[in-house]
């Protein structure tokens, strides 16, 4: 059973990527005739061998960086990433797990609203929320990145073999059917029970279920492209299959893949929230966005303690939005049709 969030993410990913293609498609009525001039016949031009200084990656980068929002988002994300990494090394930062005691009374600083000492306030036993949120972001991003990368690499590899090598088709189809038919929740829960919740476990669990959808997707795309003329030509010329897959097919899919990885990170955070909700997330002494949100939810009904849910939520929202936006801009940029 996919959770609602999973299904949503999938639907969204489709939505974003296709809308991406669409947005930049060239509208006939926008053609500006001043950009065109009649080309005369020129013998030297005709003799020149077709050559352009077009470099795929450079163009992609150029188109990608053309949008100011994208650049802004990129800088924002880079800052967040950088800060999550360096935050613990900045002087005067509190440890995310230290319980702060009031030196006079020796009583914990419980539920202190945000002030200049505790920028985001403290939680129920006097731990600093500011450092917990950064530490949580670090954990969650790490989980997200790892699981998105691994499950996509595995998914792409298997998907390519599945789509390209006919011999493997039936075996992999069977394997896919088995995995896809076990509700994800069952698989995830059982794996966590067997392995015990820890960062490693959560990553493994997410990878175990993450590659399934990706490999199916890649397989279908490869099936579409596999028997196109240029690939037939390559094959006739004796190009080995691995080379065809790596050089001819995968570049076609690069935008899709990047988008999937970008969406995989917020999706991983979403599933982590879900796992925490059913009691199988990371223990609270390893802060993560999932358990910070879950902790915050418990006090949401209390007006004066709502900051405890607001800040973690803000972090999740900001990360989710920027990954969505960046992913779809990059998918646009990676589409050669948008390289003008």
């Amino acid at each position, binding site marked *: 059973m996919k959770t609602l969030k999973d299904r949503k993410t999938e639907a969204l990913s489709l939505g974003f990527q296709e809308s991406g293609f669409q947005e930049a498609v060239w509208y006939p009525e926008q053609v500006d005739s001043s950009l065109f001039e009649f080309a005369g016949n020129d013998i030297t031009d005709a003799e020149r061998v077709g050559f352009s200084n077009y470099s795929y990656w450079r163009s992609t980068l150029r188109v990608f960086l053309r949008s*100011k*929002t994208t650049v802004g988002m990129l800088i924002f994300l880079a800052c967040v990433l950088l800060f999550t990494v360096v935050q613990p090394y900045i002087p005067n930062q509190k440890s995310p797990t230290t319980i702060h005691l009031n030196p006079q009374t020796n*009583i914990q600083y419980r539920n202190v609203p945000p002030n200049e000492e505790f920028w985001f306030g403290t939680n129920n036993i006097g731990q600093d929320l500011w450092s917990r949120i950064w530490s949580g972001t670090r954990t969650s991003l790490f989980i997200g990145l790892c699981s998105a990368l691994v499950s996509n690499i595995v998914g792409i590899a298997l998907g390519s073999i599945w789509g390209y090598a006919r011999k493997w088709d039936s075996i992999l189809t069977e394997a896919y059917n088995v995995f896809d038919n076990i509700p994800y929740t069952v698989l995830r829960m059982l794996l966590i029970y067997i392995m015990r919740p820890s960062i490693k476990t959560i990553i493994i669990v997410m990878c175990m279920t993450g590659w399934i959808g990706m490999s199916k997707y890649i397989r279908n795309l490869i099936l579409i492209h596999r028997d196109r003329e240029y690939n037939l030509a390559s094959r006739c010329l004796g190009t080995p299959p691995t080379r065809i897959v790596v050089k001819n097919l995968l570049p076609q899919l690069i935008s899709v893949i990047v988008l999937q990885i970008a969406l995989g990170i917020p999706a991983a955070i979403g599933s982590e929230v879900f796992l925490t909700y059913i*009691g199988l997330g990371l223990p609270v002494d390893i802060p993560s966005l999932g358990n910070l949100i879950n902790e915050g939810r418990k006090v949401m*009904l209390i007006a004066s303690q709502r900051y405890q849910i607001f800040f973690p939520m803000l972090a999740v929202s900001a990360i989710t939005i920027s990954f969505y*936006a960046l992913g779809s801009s990059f998918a646009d940029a990676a589409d050669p049709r948008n390289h003008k």
Partner: protein
Amino acid sequence: MTKKWTSLIMVLALLLTSASAALAQTGPTIDSGAATTVENMASEQVVKQIYEYEISEWNPLVPSSATTWANYIDSLVEYDNYGMCQPCLAESWTKSEDGLVWTFNIRPGVKWQYSNGEEYGVDVKAVDWVTTAKYILTPEHAARTADLLYVFEGAEAYYDALSRGLPGDWDAVGIRALDDYTLEFTLTKPLPYFLSMLTYNWGYPTNAEYLEELGDRFGTSHDTFLYCGAFLCTEYQPESYRINTANPLYWDKENIHIERIEYQYNAERSTLEPELLLRGETTYADIPTSQLDAWINDPVRSALIRPSRPSGRSYWMLFNFWPNFPEQYDRENWLIAANNINFRKSIYYAFDRLAAVSTSDPYNPESFIMRTVTPVNFAAAAGKDYTQLGDLAAISNTDQHQLDRALEYKATALEELTAAGATFPILIYMPYDTGGTNSTERAQVVEQQLERDLGVDYIDIILEGYPSTDYLNVTRRAGNYALMESYWGPDYADPETYTDPFAIGQKYNYIYMADGYGEKTTLEDPEGRLGFDGDFWKNAVYDKMVNEAASEVIDIEKRYTALANAEAWLIDQAFIIPVGALYSTGYVSSHMNPFESQYSLFGMSGDRYKYQVVMAKPMGTEEYLEKMEIWEAERAARIEAAQAAGIDY
């Protein structure tokens, strides 16, 4: 494209700020003008409760806990609001000189009824208890309480025979119906606390004809067993609601004041319950510790809450003598340290239980701390509370948290352990249950408090979280810890019940394996008892003390003092550090008066609604403390009077 995103972000930012502004406002306010009648009794006697765990077992004979049927089926005896044993379905009883044979006279005229209140057509008779016992003692029914019946003559042999496929001899089992209204129990040895054991599943009668009639379908839902209690479960929809209606045919109707009990299911009970109480959708709410500050500091809300009543559960920190934790944390080193009494004592004296208990109740942790294994008010002899008897008095009356003494012991331990070849810091592997917020917080508090006070060069506590499901199995019961928190709840009304976890064969902290506190032996040794690791052990010092104490069954004062001495020894050796009666929540808001309800820390009596009324307003802290004091005095007086008169209670 660019514009779209920019504007989107801006709108979003705007929305988030407005959302935060909305967040800053106060939540729904409560109607403080609730009408208070003179006697503070609600006009409508309806209890409304939220529950988060659905009843998974409707068959009263199978599970390990009998609470579900507390209000549906009556037992032989029950407890009053001072915890004194009262006749229930047994009108009276006698016990033989040697204390082995107990005879109960069953109340005549009690009807068996269906869940809708219709009569089944048969009265409750003595033979119904025999039916129950026979059902539980048949292995094929997989009853979880079969071993509780081993106190009866011939019961264990009967169960064993059946489980080996041999015919059992039921006539030899000491549970007999002499006639329709006389029931006789024969015990294997005298038990001063036998009456209190009657409030478990086998204290419920079962009608044999109905049981046979339904066969497999017996006890699969609220309408497949027979009722004879104060309430009938008239409506039930799993994971939705359950409605109990007062039984019009109940034999003790004048003590039932509540008309209906409405249970509503909600999986997020702990989050929503306080809000539901404010809106009048429930009459009881646990106030989670995380929300407590806001309640205490709000003048309207703080009047609605009171401390929760400690249960009989006793929590302690355990030193483990059978370490099976991951080898990377150096089991050998831990064993050297754990076997050194000065090391254990340094931790014992450094441990700040007040800080630990604060995670459950930060405002009034004193009322939840425990210095002994047995809680205060559990038992008494010769006019003294059990915790004031013998050597236990000294432990009860002094605070163990003495940092200077801890540091003295630390100095000695450092010396001795270095000589013994231990490496510092001593790694202390401490697992905890990630399922509960409080337990997670407590683990962190304990870790940081001990490390701060004793120094990280001396000890290094390593926390490791395990999920709730199967938590104890992979940790304590597998010896997979060095120091951890665990608990025990009483099974019957005698302090002996609190000695069980430390005996040979128990999966607690295996103190019989400590150097010099027990001997390893073999299967052939008649004295040997199976330890949990598969080896045989004998001569455990603690077991010996307890057995000697428990062999006294006539002179209660002597018995209790000896037991208290054993308990004092256990604590003095610092095998365990008592922590407290930890609740998930230290405060509750309830329309019921806790001092009216039946009081018993074991069995099903405490879950009954007999004697209780619904108040128009929840009880406040002051009123609670006031009534608590009166109640404690009353209870002590009653116990003394009963003991003086030689009445079992």
